[in-house]
């Protein structure tokens, strides 16, 4: 009987408070640690995802730039000739700097007779894909957009909303920046990606600059 009474005796208030305090401290520490680890992990995931998105963008943009100017039939045949795609009067420039005219080199228009190379830019029916495209940065959606000028329609968002900036640097054969499209041999693409997490110290989104320089191989220099 006396044994039962001792077993059923509860903790004292002081014991409970001490135990609660210790438990709270331990759990709080564990939660904070876990939270930090989780935040760090999430930032890394977001950072990685953002960089992956930026590299993907560099990849397909570079592929378009690399093939720009493929012109086996020497278009235009005569100086002053113009094409009919996507609209009558279109000139062949192969690399058009800042086609949107927004004072920044965050957009580029690329032309190539490659799909197939048939001497008709855009094809007889103006339906040959990837022969006249515009790549631009859309700050509203924080993404890079793609427009096939021959196929028409609206520009299509091609990246996740992690793009903080896009810049094309045009260079001549000596890698000196040039504003003359006819002299462009190299194009450096600069993509700034932004993670969707906030740096707890700066309280700003993390950004990272990715660059890739591509030679216009389709051009006969």
């Amino acid at each position: 009987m006396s044994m039962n009474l001792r077993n059923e005796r509860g903790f004292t208030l002081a014991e409970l408070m001490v135990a609660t305090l210790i438990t709270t401290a331990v759990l709080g520490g564990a939660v904070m640690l876990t939270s930090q680890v989780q935040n760090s992990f999430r930032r890394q995931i977001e950072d990685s995802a953002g960089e992956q998105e930026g590299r993907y963008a560099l990849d397909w943009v570079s592929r378009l730039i690399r093939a720009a100017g493929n012109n086996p039939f020497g278009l235009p045949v005569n100086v002053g000739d113009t094409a009919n795609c996507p609209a009558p009067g279109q000139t062949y420039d192969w690399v058009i700097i800042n086609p949107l005219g927004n004072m920044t080199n965050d957009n580029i228009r690329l032309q190539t007779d490659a799909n197939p190379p048939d001497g008709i830019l855009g094809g007889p029916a103006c339906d040959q894909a990837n022969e006249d495209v515009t790549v631009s940065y859309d700050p509203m959606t924080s993404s890079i957009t793609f427009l096939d000028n021959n196929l028409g329609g609206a520009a299509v968002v091609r990246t996740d909303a992690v793009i903080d900036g896009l810049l094309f640097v045009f260079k001549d054969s000596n890698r000196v920046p040039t504003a003359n499209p006819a002299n462009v041999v190299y194009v450096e693409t600069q993509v700034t990606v932004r993670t969707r997490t906030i740096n707890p110290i700066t309280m700003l989104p993390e950004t990272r600059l990715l660059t890739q320089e591509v030679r216009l191989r389709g051009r006969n220099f």
Partner: protein
Amino acid sequence: MTTHPMNPVRSEQGVALIIVLLLLAVMAGLTTGLTLNGQTEIAMAHNEQYYAGARAAAEAGMNRATEQILGNITDNLMVTKAVPVIGNGPFNLTDEYSYTFEILDDDDPVLYGGAALTGPGPGTQLEAMAEDGDPNVDGNMRMVVRATATGPRGTMVTIARILESVAIPDLPTTTTINPAILVNGDLSIAGNTKVIGTQGNVHANEDVTGSGGSYEVAGNLTASGDLIGDIHATGLTAGGMPPIPVPEIKVADYTGLATHKLTSTGAILVLSGGMWVPCFGKGATECPVGWSYSLATNTWSASGSMPTSGVNKSTYWVEGNVALNGTGKTAGFTQMSVLAEGNLTVQGNGKFKPGNESGIQFVTNGDFDLSGTVDADDSLDMDGQILVREQMRIAGNSEFQGRVMVEDRDHADNIYNAVTNPNGNRGGDPLEVNSLSGNMTVTYNGSLGGITVEIPGGPDTYTNTISGWIEQ
């Protein structure tokens, strides 16, 4: 005090187990999710890696093909459709990556997934490309070189470039050659032979064999075959030269020059009023003296002083062999030519000048043998011609001014037959090779004019350029 029938200790043990199981399930779920996510990430990374590797392989292959194509000028790539020297592969870079090549006409539907290009007709692709839609017929000298690389898990990257191949035909050309000695066969040259003059050139359409260092050729010594032995000349010495055409040589082409005809029956005829009439009894002015005829050998011979007809120039058309063994005139030259339908032998010390205005000195349907100290190089007169249907030998101390041209027919195919081979040799076959030897001298100053030689063109050569860049 109310007692509790329940046993509180036993009832709380199951809760712990359940909680542990739940925790294990949650952890297992998390582990599974993380594992699957990790595997997906790894697969994505592998895909990127394989793509990058395959792309690098394709680009490397394209660079290799470009180098080979640009360095090639002999292959018609539209026909071979293969990268020169190395072929189209496949080429294994590693156990995982390899690449192959294709060279296709730019209107080949294979390039476009099997879909034919539009056209022909205005505004169509084929018209813009100047193509016909036939992948085996190139209409615009443009082709497409494709390098396709493969990697693990079916990774495939294709890079294409435009190949322009311009054929440069090696067209036949003509040149003019003016030889003193021209033999349509082999020729040997030896001794102190001299071929001199402003056009002292020697050419054989087959081989030339030289012996010793004493012979002299003032011009070129060339052969369409090989130059063998001791070969030297003031001018060019070369084998493998284009052959110089030698026309058919036959007496019949020159009988219009004849003033007399010595027949195979022993008669001497003279041209009178356009008709051949016996000269017997016409006196020394029309009927030459000094000829004798051997019916047994069908040979007309002249010994001692050369036959003269009393006129300044005589051209004898002889229906058989001729043997001149005379000493010629004591002063000046005997202006006589011989057109022999058999073999022609000239020996002794005769001095000759062509007996006609055409400069034809000797023509024979058979062999020609010039030896002794025969002199026919009156430098004050024009260049003469010696034309031989079979073989020739010029030896001794003989001298001749002009051109010697030898057709070098095989005697077996050149035996006279009045019906089947009227231009054949009426004599035997004393000579079987062509030779220049002894101390003979041939002087030729080129007044007979050159012979046009056509140098046949060779195979086409190609200039290849590669441009553009297409990634598919």
